[in-house]
């Protein structure tokens, strides 16, 4: 990627504006990886340590992987070395958001909708996000998901990572990533549906 090469050259020259650009662009993705591995409490420290490692090793970045993959791999390694033994065993926790999910209760015994999805007043994300109350409500839902669910959702939707990349970074199986993603998406859907129906969180 020409822009990436250009950015790396500027970083190697020590251009502060380039560092700022780099951090602003990738901080969110790095944080999502860190949260998934060490949890929220230690994530910021891991991200900071990772950035320092990035600065130390920038000369060695050979451009074999994309810059993003390289940064996220450093973050995952930093997080894992901090984690050592205490890998959480809650991979497939069944946590759903505050507005539930689309579960069996929504279906009749024959597998058809008993309570079909209601029609939202708009299909425009911009129009939906216009409302501060809904933005806050979604933040609340995201905060109540498990850290792993939230991170997988963020890496997939906001960072547009492919599923195999998420598996590699977080050391979880492909099927687990799919399950986590599915649960997280249904929780978000349930929040939007609830807000559309009631106008409140």
């Amino acid at each position, binding site marked *: 990627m020409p822009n990436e090469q250009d950015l790396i050259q500027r970083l190697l020259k*020590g251009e502060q504006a380039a560092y700022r650009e780099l951090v602003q662009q990738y901080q969110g993705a790095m944080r999502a990886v860190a949260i998934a591995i060490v949890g929220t409490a230690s994530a910021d420290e891991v991200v900071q340590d990772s950035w320092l490692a990035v600065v130390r090793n920038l000369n060695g970045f050979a451009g074999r992987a994309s810059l993003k993959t390289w940064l996220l791999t450093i973050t995952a390694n930093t997080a894992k070395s901090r984690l050592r033994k205490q890998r959480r065993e809650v991979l497939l926790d069944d946590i759903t958001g505050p507005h539930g999910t689309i579960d069996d209760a929504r279906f009749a015994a024959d597998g058809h909708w008993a309570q079909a*999805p209601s029609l939202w007043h708009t299909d425009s994300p911009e129009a939906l996000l216009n409302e501060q109350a809904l933005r806050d409500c979604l933040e609340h839902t995201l905060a109540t998901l498990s850290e792993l669910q939230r991170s997988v959702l963020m890496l997939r939707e906001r960072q547009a990572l492919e599923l195999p990349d998420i598996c590699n970074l977080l050391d979880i199986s492909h099927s687990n990533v*799919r399950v986590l993603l599915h649960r997280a998406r249904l929780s*978000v859907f349930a929040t939007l549906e609830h807000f559309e129906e009631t106008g409140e969180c």
Partner: protein
Amino acid sequence: MLKCKDLVALSSDLLDGELTLKQRIAVRMHLAMCVHCRRFIRQLRVSQRVIRQLPDQQAPELETLLRAMQAQQQRASEPDQGDSSK
């Protein structure tokens, strides 16, 4: 025949292009007939885009971090002082 409940179970895989050919055909046939499921999938895609566009709330200590990185970078670019104490 795919039921609505099955379709919901496959919905995330549908979004990610993870369905097998057989599943894709079954999903397409179901969606052709079921207005509720069409709405569900459409709105699930909307909620996907909502998450993509949700503004970032966390404001990390950007300036502090950048200063630390700058210091690190200066240390790295200083000539080797023969410091073997580390």
